[in-house]
């Protein structure tokens, strides 16, 4: 990375390819398969334009992970804005059972830290795939309240994940 910052094209080429593969693995369990390449390209562009912000005295991967996470959250926001129904539906399709169980245990632990109303609607809409209206009918909350609870709950979850990282 230091060589890439200094303009060494050969090193940059190797680094970009390695980073591309790392990002592919990073996003595999975070976005549907057909969106991975787009997202990887977005992060590679971000990585390239912001390469001056890496401090050689600090580890490289946390820096890259922070950029990847930033782009991922941005991507989720765009998807959420355009179609609140299809979020992370295709996740974990190719994962082993153990990974799915572990992911579920971690998720339950995180959801357990949210107020019940928020955790309940996130489970229904984001995990079980119910529509906002169906969740509203099941919980007795208004549709707008369901949206607000999902929004606030996801925000809290993001903060918790950030603190853990």
């Amino acid at each position, binding site marked *: 990375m230091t060589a890439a910052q200094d303009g060494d094209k050969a090193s940059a080429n190797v680094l970009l390819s390695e980073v591309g593969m790392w990002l592919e693995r990073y996003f595999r369990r975070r976005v549907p398969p057909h969106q991975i390449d787009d997202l990887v390209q977005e992060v590679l562009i971000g990585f390239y334009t912001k390469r001056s912000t890496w401090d050689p005295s600090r580890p490289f991967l946390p820096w890259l992970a*922070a950029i990847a996470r930033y782009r991922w959250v941005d991507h989720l926001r765009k998807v959420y804005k355009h179609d609140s129904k299809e979020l992370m539906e295709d996740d974990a399709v190719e994962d082993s059972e153990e990974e799915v169980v572990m992911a579920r245990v971690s998720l339950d632990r995180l959801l357990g830290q949210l107020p019940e109303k928020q955790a309940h609607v996130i489970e229904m809409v984001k995990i079980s795939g119910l529509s906002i209206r169906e969740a509203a009918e099941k919980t007795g909350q208004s549709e707008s309240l369901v949206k607000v609870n999902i929004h606030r709950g996801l925000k809290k979850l993001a903060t918790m994940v950030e603190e853990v990282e």
Partner: protein
Amino acid sequence: MKMEKQQSREDLIAALTEDLTPVERVKPAQGAWLIAFAAVVASVCCIAIFEFWTGMFTGEASAFYWITNALLLVLGAASTSGLVASALPRVGARGNAPYWSAAMLGMAPLTAIISVFFLEMNHDHTSGLPSVLNDPLTWYWECGLYGSIAGSVVALAAVLYLRRGAPVSLERSGWLTGLAAGSLGALAYNLTCPLDTVAHVGIWHTVPVLVWAVIGRLAVPRLIRW
């Protein structure tokens, strides 16, 4: 040059490699110096327009005036430190020092309000002397306005630095920009203000922090998104 997505990742990597040039690293110290310089510029402008208040050095200034300015300085330093660090992508726990410093400064307006309340309650309205609420110094809001205007110089420097960097928590960077701009802008103007009563200093010398915190949170994220 703005790079666009390509047909394949390999094409993109080839294009990025082709355009590669050496870059100068972004360093937090550069941001800190830039913001400190902006605060000095704001102070010099305020002094040029309103004149330096020499009462600070002749013993006229009240203790509350000194304490409030010291808290503004602490908040300015803590928020600047957090802000310049937030320009570089990183994961992990982030310090809460700026928020605690803001809470400490929040004691100034709180004290002012409590003080005004009890002074007013115990004031002998038959004495003919003006009560604190009738004192024009208590309502001299222009200090808040001038402090907020001075803060815009600091905010500009902070946004320029953040745009050079790569902030990954835009809301946090927005809050920190607001806190730094408000506290250092207020401090820059306060050097010229001879009004040092608890009510005036506690409210109007600290209100730019609140004003800029709100502006920072609402406006800065869209200016630094990348």
